């Protein structure tokens, strides 16, 4: 069946099976492979994208349910030359090792800033990252990066 939505500002019309997950539409049809599939059971958060401004797990949403929505993926927030402040903070603080969880971490982190503001204490960041799992870093540098990225977002127009 036909689904129409906006992905990273571009209008998309695709003919898909109803069982197509949002993450499958993004990765397999649109070749936006920055959004990852980790657990495929809505626990790890590697697949987090924004739908109408809110972070969701794209492995646990049907693409057809997202009809008419605006989807933002990791590819839609910055460019190689101009990283999003949260991406820059993750780079600066080396908040990753293998990098698999990073796109989801960054999308969740931007959502945290959108909901909780630019001044985030460590406890808030750790609580709010509950839906994202990293198996490499032990989280310390991620937590630092989110705090720095949140502050940096206040200064930029992003």
């Amino acid at each position: 069946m036909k689904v129409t939505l906006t992905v990273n500002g571009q209008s998309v019309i695709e003919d898909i099976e109803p069982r197509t997950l949002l993450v499958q539409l993004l990765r397999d049809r649109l070749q936006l492979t920055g959004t990852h599939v980790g657990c495929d059971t809505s626990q790890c958060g590697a697949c987090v994208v924004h739908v109408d401004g809110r972070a969701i797990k794209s492995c646990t949403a049907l693409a057809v349910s997202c009809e008419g929505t605006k989807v933002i993926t990791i590819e839609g927030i910055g460019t190689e030359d101009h990283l999003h402040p949260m991406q820059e903070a993750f780079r600066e603080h080396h908040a990753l090792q293998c990098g698999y969880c990073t796109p989801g971490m960054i999308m969740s982190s931007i959502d945290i800033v959108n909901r909780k503001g630019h001044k985030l204490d460590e406890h808030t960041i750790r609580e709010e990252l509950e839906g994202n799992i990293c198996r490499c870093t032990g989280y310390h540098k991620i937590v630092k990066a989110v705090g720095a990225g949140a502050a940096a977002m206040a200064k930029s127009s992003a």
Partner: protein
Amino acid sequence: MYSFDYQRPPTIEEAATALASSPDAKVLAGGQTLLPTMKQRLARPSVLIDLGGIAGLQSISRKDGMLVIGAMVTHHAVANSQEVKSAIPHLADVAENIGDPQVRNRGTIGGSLANNDPAADYPAAALALGATFKTSQRTLSAEDFFQGLFTTALKENEILTEIHFPIPKRFGYARFSNPASRFALAGVAVAETAAGVRVAVTGAGADGVFRVPAMEAALSKSFAVSAIAGIAIDVKLLGSDIHAGADYRAQLIKVMARDAVTMAAS
């Protein structure tokens, strides 16, 4: 997951008609339980009827002394609603502690209640508050609605549309979480409304959410932690699994009841 047909009707009447016309149809709310279940091939609906296109199911309002929450209101919306925070502040806290932020952005109160997971938080809150459940066909009390593990009074072609919460004099909910899943090993909701004091337990019951009459009677006489200190829970009512034994859950219920009463009284 297996393939299925998909419909997104604009009204509850059309959704009910679609549901009645296909024997293996299922209703899709936020999908945070149904979609994982389908991925594991534990459910195989022939048709999914998505309630996401029905605008009337997404509002929160106050009507005739009740807090009315539409079935498709997300946990995030309940947690952040000024209407909920002013009417039943700790009900907003219940919503804020479900799942993780991404699940709260998608999961709905109606979906959670209709699923009646024995470890979910909302069933305890709804039972303690004495909520009424409005469906596409009728109105049900919380006692009648919950019918045991993953079971409700909803008929095959019936859709939950609104939950009406009496505005209580006081309400509290305390949960002891499984450290991995954050689901309740025991969660206790305590409410005092015009109809009296009610205590409801989730996460621990062998047959899902249940009330504790002995605690209700004691709290009716004196709404204080000391009133329920000596009340033991019958372990035969409780479930045992790899996460906790029934005797441990019985102890957790006492402790969570204490915390819920403290929260409600403050």
